[in-house]
């Protein structure tokens, strides 16, 4: 099957600063992909590259098997909801639907109208008078009505209150049930994405820190707590993502290849947030993949 999103050595430079570097990814189709990372990590850059608003400085990216924004047909296959869910404030809700119909050959007018009435939006209301939550719902309705194969959303819930956030995610998930669509959405909060995503990409310091199926990620990471120990003493197939030590105790978050047999360790499962935070803090401390040696014990 063709990947929803495939990047190979992808990079984007603004002046001297690399907003995204050496990004290699292959996201399977039919998934709800969460792109998580702190502000300024390169999330928006990656999404803008994916929808063809930006051109790569290095490497390549393909969306649904073709370069993004290649031609009108390719643009029609991808729906995009930009950050702050922009709409035309002087146009009414109904105007937006009409505009969508003119601009998109595959426009599903009936579904869009039905959705707007389900949401309880007044078609005559000017979009500028809508609440943040309603505006986000309108933007999502428009993006869905063009019947895309891939829907890209940049921080769609960041500016919404908790209730609007929930309603938005309900709308998004019911879209997944009704249409076969791949979704990529970004957030700086894991909690926003935890329930809706089945695939996660962690982006920090302009690089992909980890990517994979959520269940696989959860199954592959554990917290080990036990008597103080040098990380080098851990089995070779354990990758230490995060470590902390007191005089008597060591605690590690590891990515591991198999079960833990050493009875000295207390082994705990991690939440998705724990896993993500471990990778983010590793990226920030710049420890990279290399395992730190004895120095931490001194």
């Amino acid at each position, binding site marked *: 099957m063709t990947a929803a999103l495939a990047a190979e050595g992808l990079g984007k430079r603004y002046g001297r600063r690399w907003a995204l570097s050496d990004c290699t990814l292959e996201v399977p189709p039919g998934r*709800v992909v969460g792109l998580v990372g702190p502000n300024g990590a390169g999330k928006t850059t990656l999404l803008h590259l994916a929808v063809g608003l930006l051109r790569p400085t290095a490497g390549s990216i393909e969306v649904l098997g073709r370069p993004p924004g290649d031609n009108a047909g390719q643009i029609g296959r991808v729906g995009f909801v930009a950050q702050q869910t922009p709409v035309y404030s002087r146009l009414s809700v109904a105007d937006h639907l009409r505009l969508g119909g003119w601009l998109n050959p595959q426009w599903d007018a009936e579904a869009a109208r039905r959705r707007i009435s389900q949401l309880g939006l007044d078609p005559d209301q000017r979009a500028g008078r809508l609440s943040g939550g309603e505006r986000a719902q309108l933007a999502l309705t428009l993006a869905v009505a063009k019947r895309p194969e891939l829907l890209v959303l940049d921080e769609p819930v960041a500016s919404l209150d908790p209730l609007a956030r*929930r309603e938005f*995610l*309900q709308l*998004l*998930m*019911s879209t*997944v*049930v*009704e249409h076969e669509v791949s979704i990529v959405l970004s957030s700086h909060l894991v909690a926003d994405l935890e*329930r*809706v*995503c*089945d695939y996660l990409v962690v982006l920090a310091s302009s690089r992909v820190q980890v990517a994979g199926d959520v269940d696989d990620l*959860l*199954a592959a990471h554990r917290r080990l707590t036990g008597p103080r120990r040098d990380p080098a003493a851990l089995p070779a197939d354990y990758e230490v993502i995060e470590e902390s030590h007191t005089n008597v105790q060591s605690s590690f978050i590891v990515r591991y290849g198999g*079960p833990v047999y050493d009875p000295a360790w*207390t*082994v*705990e*499962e991690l939440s998705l947030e724990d896993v993500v935070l471990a990778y983010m803090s590793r990226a920030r401390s710049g420890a990279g993949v290399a395992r730190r040696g004895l120095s931490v014990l001194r």
Partner: protein
Amino acid sequence: MVIEFHLNARSGLSPYQQIVQQVRHALRLGLLHEGDQLPTVKDAVERLAINPNTVLKAYKELEHAGLVAARPGVGTFVTKTLSDVSLAAHGPLRQDLRRWLAQARRAGLDDESIEALFQDTFRSSAAEDVA
């Protein structure tokens, strides 16, 4: 609809595990009977704002356990009740547990230590079952 799912962010269980648990719980308590329909994937997804695969995964696991069956295009239905089978086993298990608790107290464990030990053992054995 017979039951409705709800998710607890602090339960320590993943959403899919919570759904499985809630169905099993309802079966054990006799809230669900053979022939009852579980919420449709669409209903559950819209209510909880969760990924449809989470619900499907939970239903698949319940199906695998022989508790429910999917009828394509219609929904997922209960095929077996848990209450009678497991209720009979409650008595002896409770007795065993009482004996174990008395043993633990004799060994000097306080309530908190007992609970910690139980939770820890429970979790690690559950993890082994999954692995």
